[in-house]
C-alpha cells in the first residue's frame, strides 16, 4: 500500500493561515536584506541572504509547515514506498521557467543529480543514500535509495534542493555561466535588477502556475549595511519588513513598540538554529566532564535570553532543538545554579587555569553574550579571557582546535541525522572545518546510536534511539548548549501571511499580501 498525502489536506493547512481576510493583490513589499548576498544563484550559493532573496525566484518540490510536515510546492503530491526506499513525486504540469520555457521532470533530474551534486555540499551528504533519480514521464520524478534514510523527505526544501533550469546550465561551466547574474527560476517572483550596495528588485511572475498567486506586484530588497540604519529605515517607513537577524536584538523592543508593528519568531522551525559553546574536550580544564557540567550550571541562560534576545527563543535542554523531530526533554537538566558549579569545580580540583573564550564575531549581541558568560564564569571562580577575532580568525581557530570555549550556532535542518549527529559522532573529528565534531568528543555508543537512528525506518524506533543519545550527551556535556535562538521577523501588521512555513521568510513571499 502506498502512503499518500492528499493535496487537499495540504492546501487546507496553508489556507487556515489566510482564512481571516481575503487577500488583495498589488503593492510593493519593502524588505531589508543583510548582508548583501554574494550571488542570487541559489544552486551555487546557499548562505542566508542568498536564500532569503532567491527563495522567491527558485522553488523546490516541497515546502514544510511549522510542524515540519511536507507541503506541496512544485510537486502537487508524492508517495513513499513502505520500505522507505522509493520516493515518487507528481509535478504540477503547467509550470514555466521565468524565460517562458516549460519546466519538467527532466529539470528535476538535472538539478538534483547533476548540478547540485557538483555544487551543493550539504545536499551531497544526503545524496549519498540515493541510488538513482529518474523521470518516467514529464511530470513524474522517482528517487530510489540504496538504504532507508529517515530525514530524506526533509531535503526537498528550496535552500537544499533548488530547481535549476536544465536548458540554461546543461553542459556549461556553472560558475562562469552569465545567467548567474540574471537568475531564472520557477518561483512566484522574477528577477529585475540588482544595484550593488543599494537594492535588489523582484517583480511578480504573471505566469505563476497557481492562479492568483503571488499577490504582491514587486519586492524591493534594500541593502543597508549598518544595523542602526536598518532600524531607522524601518522607523522612517522606508522598509516594512525586517527579516530575522537584520537588526540588532537591542533594537527589537523599540521597533516592536511602534504602531502597526508585528513581530514573530516563527519561520525558523526547519533550520532550528541552536547555539552552544564548543568546549575543547581534548585538553585543559574543559577536558574534565565536571568542569563542563560546572559551566552549564554557572551560566544564567534565562538572563541572556531576556537581556540579549528579548525573551525570544528558548533555553536549550538538549542537543536537539525542540522544534526538530525526535527532541526529548527526558534528559539531565542544568538550571542556573552557581553553588552547584562551585561544588563541581572544587570536586575536580580546578586550579584556576584561565580559559580562553572566543565570541562569535557576528555583531553586538554575541559580543555582549560572551561578556555576560565571562562574568557568570568568573563568579564561580573560573578565570576567563575573551579572545577578540573576526570571522576568518574565528573559523581558523575553531578549525585548528585552538580554543577552550567558543560560541557558535548551527542549523538542525529538521532532523537529527542532518543537523545534530555531525557535531557529536567521532567519524566527524577532523581539523580544517568549524562545522564538524570540533570539540573532539568520542563515544562509541553515541556513534552507534546515531548511525542506527539515521537508517531506522519507523518513527518510534528512531525516537527511542534519539532519546537515548540525548540522555548520554546531556550527561557528558561535550558542548555547552545555550539557547534555541529566536530570530524575530518584524513587519508592519498590514503585511499578511509573510511567514507561513517552517522556512519562514526564506521560503519566499508567495502568500504574502498587503492589506489596504
Amino acid at each position, binding site marked *: 500500500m502506498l502512503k499518500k498525502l492528499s493535496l487537499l489536506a495540504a492546501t487546507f493547512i496553508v489556507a487556515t493561515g489566510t482564512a481571516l481576510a481575503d487577500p488583495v493583490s498589488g503593492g*510593493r513589499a*519593502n524588505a531589508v536584506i543583510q*548582508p*548583501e548576498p*554574494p*550571488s542570487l544563484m541559489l544552486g551555487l*550559493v*546557499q*548562505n542566508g541572504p542568498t536564500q532569503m532573496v532567491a527563495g522567491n525566484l527558485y522553488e523546490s518540490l516541497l515546502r514544510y509547515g511549522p510542524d515540519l510536515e511536507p507541503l506541496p510546492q512544485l510537486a502537487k503530491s508524492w508517495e513513499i514506498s513502505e520500505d522507505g526506499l522509493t520516493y515518487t513525486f507528481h509535478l504540477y504540469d503547467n509550470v514555466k521557467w521565468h524565460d517562458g520555457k516549460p519546466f519538467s521532470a527532466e529539470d528535476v533530474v538535472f538539478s538534483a543529480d547533476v548540478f547540485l551534486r557538483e555544487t551543493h*555540499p*550539504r545536499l*551531497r*551528504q544526503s545524496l549519498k543514500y540515493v541510488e538513482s533519480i529518474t523521470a518516467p514521464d514529464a511530470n513524474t520524478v522517482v528517487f530510489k535509495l540504496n538504504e532507508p534514510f529517515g530525514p530524506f523527505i526533509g531535503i526537498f526544501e528550496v*535552500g537544499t534542493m533548488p530547481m535549476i533550469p536544465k536548458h540554461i546550465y546543461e553542459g556549461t561551466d556553472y*560558475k562562469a555561466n552569465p545567467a*548567474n547574474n540574471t537568475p531564472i527560476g520557477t518561483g512566484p517572483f522574477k528577477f529585475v535588477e540588482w544595484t*550593488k*550596495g*543599494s*537594492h535588489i528588485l523582484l517583480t511578480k511572475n504573471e505566469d505563476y502556475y497557481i492562479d492568483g498567486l503571488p499577490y504582491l506586484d514587486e519586492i*524591493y530588497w*534594500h541593502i*543597508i*549595511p*549598518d544595523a*542602526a*540604519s536598518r532600524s*531607522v*529605515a524601518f522607523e522612517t517607513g*522606508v*522598509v516594512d519588513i525586517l527579516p530575522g537577524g537584520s537588526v540588532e536584538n537591542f533594537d527589537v523592543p523599540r521597533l516592536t513598540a511602534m504602531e502597526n508593528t508585528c513581530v514573530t519568531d516563527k519561520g525558523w522551525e526547519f533550520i532550528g538554529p541552536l547555539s552552544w559553546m564548543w568546549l575543547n574536550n581534548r585538553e585543559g580544564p574543559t577536558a574534565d566532564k565536571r568542569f563542563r557540567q560546572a559551566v552549564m550550571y554557572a551560566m544564567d541562560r534565562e538572563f541572556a535570553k531576556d537581556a540579549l534576545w528579548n525573551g525570544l527563543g528558548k533555553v536549550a535542554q538538549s542537543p536537539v532543538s525542540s522544534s526538530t523531530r525526535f527532541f526529548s526533554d527526558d534528559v539531565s537538566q542544568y538550571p542556573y545554579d552557581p553553588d552547584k558549579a562551585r561544588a563541581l569545580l572544587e570536586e575536580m580540583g580546578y586550579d584556576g587555569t584561565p580559559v580562553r573564550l572566543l565570541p562569535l*564575531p557576528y555583531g553586538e549581541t554575541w559580543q555582549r553574550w560572551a561578556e555576560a558568560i565571562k562574568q557568570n564564569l568568573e563568579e564561580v571562580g573560573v578565570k576567563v579571557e575573551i579572545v577578540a*577575532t*573576526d*570571522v*576568518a*580568525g*574565528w*573559523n*581558523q*581557530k575553531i*578549525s585548528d582546535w585552538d580554543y577552550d570555549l567558543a560560541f557558535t550556532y548551527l*542549523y538542525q535542518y529538521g532532523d537529527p541525522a542532518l543537523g545534530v549527529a555531525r557535531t557529536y559522532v567521532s567519524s566527524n573529528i*577532523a581539523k*580544517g*572545518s*568549524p*562545522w564538524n565534531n570540533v570539540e573532539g568528543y568520542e563515544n562509541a555508543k553515541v556513534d552507534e546510536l546515531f548511525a542506527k537512528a539515521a537508517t531506522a525506518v519507523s518513527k518510534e524506533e528512531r525516537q527511542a534511539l534519539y532519546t537515548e543519545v540525548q540522555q548520554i550527551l546531556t550527561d557528558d556535556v561535550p558542548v555547552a548548549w545555550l539557547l534555541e535562538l529566536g530570530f524575530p521577523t518584524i513587519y508592519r501588521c498590514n503585511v499578511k501571511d509573510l511567514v507561513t512555513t517552517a522556512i519562514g521568510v526564506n521560503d519566499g513571499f508567495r502568500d504574502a499580501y498587503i492589506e489596504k
Partner: protein
Amino acid sequence: MLRFIAMRLVKAAIILIAIVTLNFFLIHAAPGDPAAVMAGEAGAADDIFLEQLREQFGLDKPLLTQLGLYLGGIIQLDLGFSYRQQMPVADLIFDRLPATLLLTMTAFVISLVLGTLAGVLASARVGKWSDTLISTVALLFYATPLYWAALMAVLIFSVQLNWLPGFGYETVGGNYEGLDRVIDIAKHLILPATTLGLFFMAVYMRMTRASMLEVSTLDFVKTARAKGLKPSIIQRRHVFRNALLPVVTLAGLQAGQLVGGAVLTETVFAWPGIGRLMFEALAQRDYNVLLGVFFVSAAMVLLFNLITDILYRVVDPRIRAS
C-alpha cells in the same frame, strides 16, 4: 615643471608598489583561511569543497606566486577577483569610489573653506572674544571623536528633529530622476560631509590662524606696513597668500586622514563608499578587495599630494622665482 611632475610620478609609483607589497604580506600574515569563510557562508563545508575553493582562487599557490600574479595584474589595472562578492575587485571599488570621492571632496571643501575663513577671522582679532570663540569651537571639533559626532548628528538632526536623512546615499526606493535626484543626494550628503569636515575644519583653522600670525611678523610684512599699505591689502596680498602655504602642505598630508575618516563616517552613515567596502572586506578577509582598496586609496593620496605639490609651487612666489 614637467620634469618636476615626472619625477614625482616616478616616486609615487615606487611608493605605490612598496605599499602594495607590504600590504600583501601583512594581510597574508593574518590568521584565517578565506576558503573556510566562503565555505561557511555556503552553509557547510567538506574537504572537496574547500579544495575546490582554494584551487579556484589560487589560494593553494605559493605566496610569492600569488604576489607576483597580483603585482602583474595591478600594472594592467586588474585588481583581482573577489571570491566573496563574485565580482572583479576593480568593479567593486570603482562602483563605490564615486560615493567616497563625493563625500571626501565635499568634506574637504567644507573644511578648507570654513577652516581658512575662520582662521583668518580669528587671526585678525587675536585676543578678542570672537577669536576665543572661534578657537574654542575649533578646538572642540578637533577633540571630538568623529564617530561620536556622527552618532550625535544622527540622533539630533535625523531622529529627533527629522530634518535630514541619517543614512544612505539617496532615498531608498525613491527613484528620483534628474535634478530631484541631485537634491536628494545632496540632502543625504549634508550630515556625513559636515561631520567628516568639522574635524578637518578645526585643523585648517588652527593652522591658518597660527600661520597668519607667524607671517604677519615677518620682515616683508613689516616693510609693507612701513610703506603705508592698507592693512586689509597687506592681509590679503602678503599675509594670507603666504600663510596659505603651510595650509596647502597640510591639506596634502591630511588626504590620507580623510580616507581613514571616511571609514568611520561611512560606517555610521551607511554611506556606500570604499571606506565601508574596506571594513566589510576586512571582516571577511576578502584579501583582494582589501588590497585593492588600499591600493586605490593610497593612489588617491599620492595623486592628492602631487596636486598640492604643484599648487604649492603656484602659490609660493619664492619657489616660482627660483
